């Protein structure tokens, strides 16, 4: 290995670390996601500065070609990152799903309250969505805002509005 390769290795490892830290600093990357990349950067930097470390470890573990250990470690690391991101994605999908459900439930409830606030316009008449907001705006918002506290008068006895009381 000549001096150019040695310096090149160190520079690339440093670039990786700088990039990750800079993203962290600008809040473009959260710590928990940055963890694996920082580990990768530090390991790369250490190995770049002390190549003997890689050779020694490879020999101790029985790798006949030291770079194979490097590739192996890279693969394991990328695998870990990928799996943790899949898990994170699942959590996010779940949260998105819940948000979508809640938003649909709220939208329906707002529509219902607006129709009631507008003077119980029969919902079956054409374009209830269009009449709702306009009438509610003319009504003045305070009465609309107080609406959710009251229970629907026509809800089944004993079960009504357990959620909307909260």
């Amino acid at each position, binding site marked *: 290995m000549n001096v150019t390769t040695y310096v090149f290795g160190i520079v690339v490892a440093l670039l990786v670390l700088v990039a990750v830290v800079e993203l962290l600093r600008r809040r473009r990357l959260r710590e928990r996601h940055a963890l694996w990349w920082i580990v990768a950067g530090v390991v790369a930097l250490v190995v770049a500065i002390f190549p003997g470390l890689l050779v020694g470890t490879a020999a101790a573990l029985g790798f006949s070609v030291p770079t194979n250990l490097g590739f192996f470690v890279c693969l394991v690391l990328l695998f870990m990152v990928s799996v943790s991101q899949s898990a994170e994605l699942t959590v996010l999908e779940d949260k998105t*799903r819940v948000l*979508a*459900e809640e*938003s*649909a*439930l709220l*939208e*329906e409830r707002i529509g*219902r309250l607006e*129709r009631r606030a507008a003077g119980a316009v029969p*919902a*079956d008449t*054409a374009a*209830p*969505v269009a009449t709702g907001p306009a009438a509610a705006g003319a009504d003045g918002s305070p009465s609309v805002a107080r609406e959710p506290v009251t229970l*629907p008068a*026509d*809800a*089944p*006895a*004993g*079960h*009504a*509005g*357990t*959620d*909307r009381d909260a």
Partner: protein
Amino acid sequence: MTAPGAPSDPRTVGSIVGMSLLQQTLIVMPAFNESAVVGDVVREVQAALPGATVLVVNDGSADDTAAVARRAGATVLDLPFNLGVGGAMRAGFKYAVANGFRYAVQVDSDGQHDPSGVPQILDALQRKDVVIGARFAGVGDYETRGPRRWAMVVLASVVSRIAGTKLTDTTSGFRGAGPRALELFAEHYPAEYLGDTVESLVLAARAGCSIEQIPVAMRVRAGGTPSHAPFKAMIYLGRAAMALVVALWRPRLSLRTVEVPGS
């Protein structure tokens, strides 16, 4: 029509399903791009089940399914994007719990399910937590055959063992949930592929819900025919088996309410 009517007697018992039972019932219809038929189906369900509230969950349709359903007189939950049948049903169950319904019955928005079967399902819900309206139980003119049929038979026998009751049609979307199952489903109804059918049954059974299958008439689908290709059936069975295994590996859920149906 948006809020359920007040039942005069909330404890109507007996084989004849009374008005009050229907008034405590939410008909949930997940709909994805069904604007051509959803209006007629909503009107049919309302005519067949006076007093029941019809909730159409518009699962991110690109067409005007929501507007058509609203005009037909249904309450509409408008999901901002497509969540699949499982996600749409979970939203429906949440609506049922939040608005004090005791029963929720899933009816397909394509008209495949005959609403005249709903009273039978409600009747069975007086003693069970989950009731499936089944296609192969001797009634109706719906028939599948070939590899897909075999896949369904295998699935049914496995799920039957888990549920502790004889089930022949685990993939039926015509099903009802009682108060205990509603609480469970509102939080945990599976949204993955096949989760709304097979996994939901496994989940409910393992949580301690009782399950029963009753025969109902089923119509031939209005649009689109179910696939009979062997390769597709294999994939179907594979995914179903995987869903089953994963469902069994998951930790058990517990029922929060102590109320027992029919008590």
